[in-house]
C-alpha cells in the first residue's frame, strides 16, 4: 500500500475514534438537561434608538468597551462612530474602499479597524485631532470578513482566503497564520482570556485555535452550509454559531460537540449575525428575512422577535454591560433595543 494510502487509512481510523469518543460522553443534550428549567421570560424589547446616517447597506457594527460608543460600517464608504445614548454621530471616517465587510473597536477605545473586498485590514487612530490611518495590514489573498483587536498592538483577522491571522499592528506583519479551514473564513470570536479564538467558515466547520502556538485544537461539525456568525458563551466553555443553513448551534468546547440546535421549520432564511445577552441565556440572531429572532439558549425555544428593519439584519451586538442589543441592517439603519 502506498504511503498516502496508508495515511488516509490512518486518518479514517482517527476520525472514527473521535466520533466514538464524542458519543461516549454524549449522555444527554442541552435541551433534555434543561427540560426542568423555568422558561426564560418572554422578551419584549422596544426600539429605543434608530440611528440614521448611513446612506447604504450596513454590513458590520461593534460596541466599544465603554458600553456607549459603537462603530458601524456601510457600503456608503463610511465608518461612523456613534454615541448610542444620545444617538449623535461622533465621527464619520471615509473608507478608501467602500466594499467593507467588518469593523472592530479596540478594547482601549483608541483604535478602530475595517476591512472587506480590498483584502486589507485598515487600522485607524481615533485619538488624533483628525482620525488617521495608522496601518494597512495587507497580506491576505482574499476578502477580509472579520477583525477583532486583542489590544492596541495585536489584531486577529478572518479572510476569504481560508486563513485567519494574528497581526502586529506596529510592524504591519502577520505574527501567526492559522491554516486549516478549506472554505472562506467568515467570522471569528476571541475568548476573554485571549489565549484562544473560534472561527466559522464556508466549509461548514467551526474551529478552536490556540493563539500562542497557531494550532487548530478542535474542529466542530454539524452545520450544512456556511457559518456566518460566531460568539462565545460568557464562560468561554461554549460558543454559538449561525449559518446559511438557517440554524444556530451551541457547541460545548469541553465535550467537543454540538449540544443544542436552534431551528424552526418555518424559518428558511440564513443567519447573518448573532449576539448573546450578558448571562448567556438569550441569543439574538439576525436573519436574511429582515428579523432578529430571540432564542432561549438553554431550552432551544424561540421566545421573541425584533421586527422593525426593512431589509436583511446584517449585524447584531450586545455591549459588555448587557444593557441593550443593537441591530444593523441593509436598510441603512441601526436600532437599539431594550
Amino acid at each position, binding site marked *: 500500500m502506498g504511503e498516502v494510502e496508508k*495515511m488516509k487509512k490512518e486518518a479514517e481510523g482517527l476520525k472514527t475514534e473521535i466520533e466514538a469518543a464524542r458519543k461516549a460522553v454524549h449522555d444527554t443534550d442541552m435541551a433534555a438537561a434543561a427540560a426542568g428549567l423555568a422558561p426564560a421570560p418572554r422578551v419584549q424589547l422596544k426600539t429605543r434608538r434608530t440611528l440614521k446616517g448611513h446612506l447604504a447597506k450596513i454590513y458590520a457594527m461593534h460596541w466599544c468597551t465603554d458600553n456607549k460608543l459603537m462603530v458601524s460600517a456601510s457600503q456608503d464608504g463610511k465608518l461612523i462612530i456613534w454615541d448610542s445614548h444620545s444617538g449623535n454621530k461622533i465621527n464619520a471616517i471615509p473608507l478608501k474602499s467602500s466594499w467593507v*465587510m467588518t469593523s472592530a473597536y479596540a478594547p482601549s477605545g483608541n483604535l478602530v479597524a475595517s476591512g472587506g473586498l480590498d483584502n486589507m485590514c485598515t487600522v485607524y487612530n481615533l485619538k488624533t485631532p483628525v482620525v488617521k490611518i495608522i496601518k494597512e495590514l495587507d497580506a491576505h489573498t482574499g476578502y477580509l470578513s472579520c477583525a477583532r483587536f486583542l489590544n492596541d498592538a495585536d489584531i486577529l483577522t478572518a479572510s476569504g482566503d481560508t486563513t485567519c491571522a494574528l497581526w502586529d499592528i506596529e510592524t504591519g506583519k502577520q505574527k501567526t497564520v492559522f491554516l486549516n479551514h478549506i472554505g472562506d473564513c467568515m467570522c471569528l470570536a476571541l475568548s476573554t482570556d485571549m489565549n484562544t479564538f473560534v472561527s466559522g467558515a464556508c466549509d461548514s466547520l467551526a474551529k478552536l485555535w490556540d493563539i500562542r502556538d497557531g494550532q487548530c485544537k478542535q474542529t466542530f461539525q454539524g452545520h450544512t452550509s456556511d457559518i456566518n456568525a460566531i460568539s462565545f458563551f460568557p464562560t468561554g466553555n461554549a460558543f454559538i454559531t449561525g449559518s446559511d443553513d438557517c440554524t444556530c448551534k451551541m457547541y460545548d468546547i469541553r465535550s467537543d460537540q454540538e449540544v443544542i440546535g436552534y431551528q424552526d421549520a418555518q424559518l428558511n432564511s440564513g443567519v447573518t449575525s448573532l449576539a448573546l445577552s450578558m448571562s448567556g441565556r438569550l441569543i439574538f440572531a439576525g436573519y436574511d428575512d429582515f428579523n432578529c429572532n430571540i432564542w432561549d439558549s*438553554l431550552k432551544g425555544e424561540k421566545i421573541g422577535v425584533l421586527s422593525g428593519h426593512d431589509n436583511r439584519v446584517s449585524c447584531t451586538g450586545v455591549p459588555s454591560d*448587557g444593557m441593550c442589543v443593537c441591530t444593523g441592517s441593509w436598510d441603512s439603519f441601526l436600532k437599539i433595543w431594550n
Partner: protein
Amino acid sequence: MVPQYKAERLRLQQFPWMKGDSPVNSTMSVGQARKLVEQLKIEASFCRIKVSKAAADLMAYCDAHACEDPLITPVPTSENPFREKKLFCALL
C-alpha cells in the same frame, strides 16, 4: 454590477465529514496526508467531559447571572440610559 460577496463563489456541495471522506481529493500529496493525520491526532487526543456536566455548568451560569442581565431582569427606567428622554421646557 454590484459584486455579490459569496454568490459567485463555487460552493462546496458535498460535506466530506458527513461522508467520511478526507477533505482533500484523492490526489493528495504525502505532505498533505501527513498534515491531515497530525491534525486528527491532535483532535483525537482531546479529553472530553460528559455533556451532562457541560450542560449543568452552562445552566448554573445562566441562573447565577440572570438577575444582573438587564435584558432578562430589566433595570428601573431611571437607570436605563436608553429610556425615552423627556424634555422639559421651562417657560421663563
